[in-house]
């Protein structure tokens, strides 16, 4: 072959050019002219180098036969392309050269089940009379058929078109192998005592059916994967009891599985996986029909019904399978109407996606984004939603289901066609990857050579780049198709345009309910309102709404989110920036749906200030402004105007705006809990300071003392603002008090806001509700000297003066320091604090409340941690100035540094305190209402968990975390707080 140029060889697809020339010569030397003719065929093989090497090996083994095959173009094509596509088949032929005979078979079409079974049985029949020999014979017969099928597959012209036939044949091979395996098991059990002693008539009287599940059940198996099965057994005559039949059937099933997957001279075929059975791994391997029915009636989870959709008789006693299907099928479709059925289907899919190692995601053909699983999921979802009322879509295999859905009008014709093509394409790639080494894999290989072989296996003109580019495009389209096929038809306005399936309103209701809308009829009203008309807004929303609906459905409150979106959209109308944001910034639109579907607090606030939607685009704006900036803005307003109502209105507006900013930031995770409480504290602080400055404009020195969580800069959404007022006495004490009271009354009036509640709480002042609302510095001094209780000293630990002259601030702080950090702590006072704490726990907790779930007063919750910190500060604050801080977390750290608390204890306390604080805020964000109790309602817990950035479906995880954290905190609390 010296006449061949190297460039020509390269065009044929060889890589190792120099060596190829001599190899071709060697081949011609061995088989003559037939070797020359092989060159053209080699050029069509997936991997020409591999095929040529194999030919040389085979020529050494059986020159005559190879010559005969290469002499005939048809035969030659089948052999060479098989060798080029599958190194596993090359190995098989080297091991069993007699199999070369199948390439001379004139009929290359896949065989029927009857024919396959006949061949398997014949092979077993002629084998030696031992289990191992019969099994080896069966496996070899299976491999022979598999080789034949690969040969068919690689010469079929268009592998996409051949896929369905190949896949069906693979399923038939599997079920036939199991059928024959079962026959071997029956033969073995009746002729030997190794696995127990059973009479032939007993064994004959035992009915056992193998149901194929999953891909094999749907007759869409791939070259190599586990075969999922379920077993059913019954006595077929009066001769044996049900127990005995089950015992025998269990042996039969076990031996059949060993015939498929046990070690042996001829290697195992594939794993038989019986774990989809009732109770999974821990359940009985074989059950009677009745026992199956009972299980599905009582115990089965949603996904187990979903698995049944693909159940099909595979081997054994057919009558049992028919009985089983007849009984279970109606239950399957009734189950799809269960609450949360679709949700659990979605969750399963996410769990699968989550388990893919990060470095494999891009190479995954099956599980990655835009992979086979996405196609299968969309199709199954549509089947589950519509199959309950539409029997024609109850088709087990994916391609059949797509056709049925299109026929019944649930999927557009064009979409169905695209879906079908993409599915076939992905499966064709998967098959090529699998049969190249007969390995169970769904990963695109990472070597360039291997990818090139796959590419050439699909189309011999393709390079690896062609394949990857095409695959990327398919992945992208598959990802979009889910949204297009499921969500677009929900817009009836679009359906009329004819580019989507036209659904009746009942069908739209079914879909909306399936994805979590509680009131689909109202949702349809919103959708219609958003998409009707010819405005630019309607046009953009038509484009956008399908994807928005998908995102809304991913949240916990799709109904209220859709309503909020409609309001927002109506308020902002045709504002160009809003439409531009929706159209151009998919990140902004996604963030918006996320916030609207997660937070009632935010949706409520949006109604008053729709322009805040601009923040969705500028996410960097979702950071707290900081105290100085807020104060500056508010003071500027207070300075410019004189009208009380006007100023108050503007200040309320700023407070609402900033609260919304923080709520959005908290939902979107742009700020953490520390920034959130600081931000909320800054808002309240600037709000009150500005109001005070505005109302108190006569130079009267009146100061505000922040107390409690406000003092500690630990405000949450909806926290009260605990304060006291202090003033410096002037020459006219009588009028001072009156003045102060008037100012405070006005602040109270102006600060109130019906739209975003503001509660100014003065109850921590001396004498509580009975005391004057403000006191002079001297009056405080006198009071604390004479009257103050231990708990009042304790409350002062969190006092922080936020307004008033420098002198006043300093004087007041010095005054209270002597009481909150006493040099000599009376033991009596400590006992008193412990006593009050015990009383608070029993008396303040609302009737009927579960102490484990109360976030403020419950076991190991906020008050436990805070009281413990305060006890430490009160007893040691004089000696250790560094622990003097109104902030709980800071104090915990300082106590550790001062050696007053074990590091580990402090961590446990801090964790519980943080989680309780975060949950309290999350409850307000989620529901728009304040509550100090961890809800028991799963939906609410789920919503709260999402805001805390738990993954979907974490209601219970959140609950467990909270209960565990607080339990540990309580143990620390009891040990440290009550220590002597």
């Amino acid at each position, binding site marked *: 072959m010296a006449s061949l140029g190297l460039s020509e060889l390269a065009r044929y697809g060889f890589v190792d050019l120099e060596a190829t020339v001599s190899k071709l010569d060697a081949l011609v030397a061995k088989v003559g002219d037939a070797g020359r003719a092989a060159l053209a065929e080699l050029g069509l093989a997936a991997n020409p180098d591999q095929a040529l090497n194999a030919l040389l090996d085979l020529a050494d083994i059986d020159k005559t036969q190879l010559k005969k095959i290469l002499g005939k173009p048809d035969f030659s094509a089948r052999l060479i392309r098989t060798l080029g596509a599958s190194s596993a088949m090359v190995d098989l032929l080297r091991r069993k050269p007699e199999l070369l005979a199948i390439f001379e078979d004139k009929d290359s079409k896949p065989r029927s089940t009857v024919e396959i079974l006949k061949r398997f049985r014949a092979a077993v029949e002629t084998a030696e009379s031992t289990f191992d020999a019969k099994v080896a014979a069966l496996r070899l017969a299976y491999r022979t058929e598999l080789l034949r099928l690969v040969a068919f597959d690689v010469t079929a012209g268009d592998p996409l078109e051949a896929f369905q036939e190949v896949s069906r044949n693979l399923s038939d091979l599997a079920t036939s192998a199991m059928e024959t395996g079962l026959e071997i098991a029956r033969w073995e059990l009746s002729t030997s005592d190794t696995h127990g002693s059973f009479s032939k008539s007993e064994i004959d009287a035992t009915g056992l059916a193998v149901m194929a599940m999953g891909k094999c059940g749907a007759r869409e198996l791939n070259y190599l994967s586990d075969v999922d099965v379920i077993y059913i057994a019954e006595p077929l005559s009066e001769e044996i009891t049900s127990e005995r039949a089950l015992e025998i059937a269990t042996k039969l099933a076990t031996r059949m599985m060993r015939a498929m997957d046990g070690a042996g001279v001829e290697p195992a075929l594939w794993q038989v996986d019986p774990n989809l059975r009732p109770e999974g791994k821990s359940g009985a391997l074989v059950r009677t029909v009745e026992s199956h029915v009972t299980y599905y009636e009582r115990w089965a989870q949603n996904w187990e019904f979903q698995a049944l959709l693909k159940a099909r008789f595979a081997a054994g006693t057919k009558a049992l399978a028919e009985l089983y299907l007849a009984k279970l099928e109606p239950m399957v479709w009734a189950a799809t109407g269960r609450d949360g059925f679709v949700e659990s289907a979605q969750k399963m899919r996410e769990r699968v996606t989550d388990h893919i190692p990060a470095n494999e995601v891009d190479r995954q053909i099956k599980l990655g984004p835009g992979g086979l699983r996405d196609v299968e999921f969309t199709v199954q979802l549509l089947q589950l939603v519509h199959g309950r009322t539409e029997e024609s879509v109850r088709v087990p295999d994916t391609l059949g289901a797509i056709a049925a859905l299109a026929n019944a009008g649930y999927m557009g014709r064009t979409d169905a066609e695209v879906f079908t093509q993409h599915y076939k394409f992905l499966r064709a790639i998967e098959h090529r990857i699998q049969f190249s080494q007969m390995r169970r894999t769904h990963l695109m290989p990472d070597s360039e050579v291997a990818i090139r072989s796959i590419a050439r296996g699909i189309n011999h003109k393709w390079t690896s780049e062609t394949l990857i580019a095409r695959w990327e495009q398919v992945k992208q389209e598959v990802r979009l198709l889910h949204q297009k096929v499921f969500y677009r038809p929900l817009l009836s306005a679009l359906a009329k345009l004819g580019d989507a399936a036209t659904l009746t309103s009942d069908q739209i209701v079914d879909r909306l309910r399936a994805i979590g809308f509680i009131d689909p009829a109202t949702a349809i009203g919103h959708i219609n309102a958003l998409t009707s008309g010819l405005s630019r807004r309607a046009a953009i929303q038509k484009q956008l709404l399908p994807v928005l609906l998908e995102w809304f459905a991913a949240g916990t409150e799709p109904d209220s989110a859709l309503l909020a979106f409609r309001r927002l959209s109506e308020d902002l109308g045709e504002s160009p920036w809003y439409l531009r944001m929706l159209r151009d910034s998919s990140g902004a639109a996604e963030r918006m749906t996320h916030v609207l579907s997660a937070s009632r607090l935010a949706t409520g606030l949006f109604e008053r200030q729709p322009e805040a939607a601009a923040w969705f685009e500028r996410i960097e704006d979702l950071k707290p402004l900081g105290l100085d900036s807020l104060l500056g803005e508010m003071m500027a307003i207070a300075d410019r105007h004189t009208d009380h109502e006007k100023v108050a209105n503007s200040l309320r507006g700023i407070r609402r705006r900033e609260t919304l900013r923080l709520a959005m930031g908290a939902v979107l995770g742009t700020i953490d809990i520390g920034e959130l409480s600081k931000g909320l504290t800054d808002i309240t602080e600037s709000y009150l300071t500005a109001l005070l400055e505005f109302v108190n404009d006569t130079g009267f020195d009146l100061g505000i003392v922040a107390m409690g969580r406000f003092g500690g800069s630990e405000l949450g959404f909806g926290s009260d603002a605990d304060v006291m007022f202090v003033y410096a006495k002037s020459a006219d004490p009588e009028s001072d008090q009156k003045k102060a009271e008037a100012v405070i009354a006005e602040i109270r009036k102006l600060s109130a806001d019906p739209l975003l509640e503001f509660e100014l709480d003065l109850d921590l002042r001396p004498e509580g509700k009975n005391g004057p609302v403000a006191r002079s510095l001297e009056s405080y001094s006198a009071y604390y000297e004479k009257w103050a209780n231990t708990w009042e000293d304790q409350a002062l630990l969190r006092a922080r003066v936020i307004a008033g002259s420098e002198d006043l601030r300093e004087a007041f702080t010095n005054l209270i320091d002597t009481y909150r950090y006493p040099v000599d702590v009376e033991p009596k006072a400590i006992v008193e604090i412990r006593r009050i704490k015990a009383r608070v726990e029993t008396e303040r907790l609302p009737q009927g409340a579960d102490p*484990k779930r109360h976030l403020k007063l419950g076991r190991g919750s906020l008050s436990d941690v805070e009281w413990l910190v305060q006890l430490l500060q009160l007893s040691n604050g004089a000696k250790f100035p560094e622990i003097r801080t109104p902030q709980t977390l800071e104090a915990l750290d300082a106590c550790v540094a001062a050696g007053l608390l074990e590091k580990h204890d402090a961590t446990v306390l801090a964790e519980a305190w943080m989680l309780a604080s975060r949950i309290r805020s999350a409850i307000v964000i989620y529901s728009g209402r304040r509550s100090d109790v961890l809800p028991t309602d799963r939906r609410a817990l789920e919503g709260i968990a999402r805001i805390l950035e738990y993954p979907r479906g974490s209601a219970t995880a959140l*609950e*467990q975390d909270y*209960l*565990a954290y607080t*339990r540990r905190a309580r*143990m620390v609390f009891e040990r440290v707080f009550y220590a002597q």
Partner: protein
Amino acid sequence: MGIQPLPQSLDHAIRKLEESELAAEVLGEEVFSYVLANKRREWSQYRSQVTPFELQQNLETL
């Protein structure tokens, strides 16, 4: 030798259980706290009974 005696009384056993993160995780928090509450009640009922031995031993000294 690092060998610790098993709890000698229900009271002691309850305290050991309270400290067990393993038990809390295996049972789940709700069940765990229920079991503890139940056992604490059992212990307090046990302690509140007056045994014949105590009567025999101590009644006369009253």
